[in-house]
């Protein structure tokens, strides 16, 4: 669903006003904590020297902005119902992020059914919550439209936590159902280029693909070193009619201290038509109580199996730096600079015109300024 440009600008303005007026208070909590209302949002301006890059456009782009509202209700000692609505005018319009019912047998076993977030890596369940990360943008190689991290699972999930003692904590997620993935058909685009079937005005669009019969899990080990944890995420599709079996697997390391935080994630993705590797490392440090700096390196490469072709559309390498001012843990302004090599996420619009003219440039510089909030 897409809205008009005017509507998007009004939405962006409203988001800025909401952020500016957001009090440092926490969520709305009612009925002795049995009902909680929370929300988050963001808006950013991005400009590049050449190609469009996600929320940053050549010549400047004001049109990014999103807002979500979450409701959680404890129906009884063991039953919970929760839902989250997400309004993202530029991409998905108004969508249901998650809506599920949960029954808590014990700390070792909770069962939930419905529309769930994808328990994947560090950010799989909180991809759009900007106050939980140092950079305005989530690492696209892992959490973007690369068919690695899903936007949601429709089905059933089991989770639990074990305390073996001596400061260790193990938690797990197991899930099954259908997985929604954001996809960009770059391989098809490059094949069109090879076959000479590109059309002027054509470009890459992000679509949502549903992958059925997914089974997956995630294991999180919190270590005695306060703030340091190790995660292993994996999922696969034993049955899939179109693209054959799909496997995604990878580890995540995270340290979050009072002033310093660091993350490292790597994922391997394999299906009938392609094999991809995605990784990033980022670190951030609070120079003062409010002022934070951060750096990130990111890499992505996919290899298609259909033909021995190579293209800058299969590659992404990025170095980025961010400078953040946190008014409150729930309200931050961020300014980031990105140097990008490759056209997996950075390309001109319409892309086909540049491919037909042979004018696609693989290097892009982008700067993004924005506000992100949560309550």
């Amino acid at each position: 669903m897409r809205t008009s440009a005017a509507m998007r600008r009004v939405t962006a303005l409203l988001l800025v006003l909401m952020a500016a007026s957001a009090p440092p208070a926490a969520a709305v909590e009612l009925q002795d904590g049995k009902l909680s209302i929370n929300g988050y949002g963001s808006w950013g301006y991005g400009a590049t020297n050449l190609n469009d890059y996600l929320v940053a456009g050549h010549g400047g782009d004001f049109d990014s902005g999103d807002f979500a509202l979450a409701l959680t209700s404890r129906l009884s000692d063991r039953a919970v119902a929760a839902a989250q609505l997400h309004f993202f005018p530029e991409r998905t319009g108004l969508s249901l992020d998650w809506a599920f019912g949960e029954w808590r047998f014990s700390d070792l076993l909770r069962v939930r059914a419905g529309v769930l977030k994808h328990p994947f890596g560090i950010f799989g369940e909180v991809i759009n919550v900007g106050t939980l990360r140092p950079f305005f943008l989530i690492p696209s190689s892992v959490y973007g439209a690369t068919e690695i991290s899903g936007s949601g699972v429709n089905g059933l999930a089991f989770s639990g936590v074990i305390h073996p003692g001596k400061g260790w904590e193990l938690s797990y997620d197991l899930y099954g159902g259908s997985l929604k993935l954001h996809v960009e058909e770059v391989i098809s685009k490059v094949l069109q280029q090879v076959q000479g079937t590109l059309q002027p005005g054509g470009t890459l669009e992000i679509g949502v693909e549903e992958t059925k019969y997914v089974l997956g899990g995630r294991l999180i080990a919190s270590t005695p070193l306060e703030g340091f944890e190790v995660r292993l995420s994996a999922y696969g599709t034993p049955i899939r009619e179109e693209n054959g079996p799909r496997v995604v697997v990878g580890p995540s390391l995270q340290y979050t201290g009072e002033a310093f935080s660091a993350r490292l994630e790597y994922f391997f993705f394999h299906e009938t038509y392609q094999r991809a590797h995605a990784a990033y490392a980022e670190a951030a440090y609070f120079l003062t109580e409010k002022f934070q700096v951060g750096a990130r390196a990111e890499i992505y490469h996919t290899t298609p199996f259909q033909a021995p072709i190579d293209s800058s559309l299969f590659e992404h390498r990025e170095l980025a730096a961010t400078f953040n001012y946190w008014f409150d843990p729930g309200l931050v302004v961020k300014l980031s600079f990105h140097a990008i090599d490759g056209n997996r996420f950075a390309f001109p619009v319409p892309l086909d015109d540049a491919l037909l003219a042979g004018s696609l440039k693989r290097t892009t510089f982008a700067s993004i300024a924005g506000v992100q909030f949560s309550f």
Partner: protein
Amino acid sequence: MTRLFLLLTTLLLADAAGGAEPGLRVVVNEANPVTSLSREELADLFLKKVSSWGDGTLVLPVDQLEETAVRENFNREILRKSSNAVRAYWQQRIFAGRDIPPPERESDGAVLAFVRRNRGAIGYVSAESSMAGVKALTVRR
């Protein structure tokens, strides 16, 4: 010298007998059979990593407001986290759809009323608060 020894002994015994930290007392409902908890156990209850008491009753932690000195003290001494780190922890839990933070009450009196009203409740109040109708826990190191 003897007076100094007696004074130190009295202070140590007083602390071991009831308080968690100077200026802070952890309280539960009078019907709760628990009399002491370790700091780690207490942190797990308030971060909702453990959700039930030994008899199966649901744990209902209740917090003080964020800006209060008693909350700051509790975060630092029991949770061993800054207020910002606690906020970040709950944001992660909330937006992943995992859990919501404990309800907050605006005063010691409101916390005590919550604890009196709910069998599984656990809260913390200033040391000078009246313990009528609740039970103060010993926090083990």
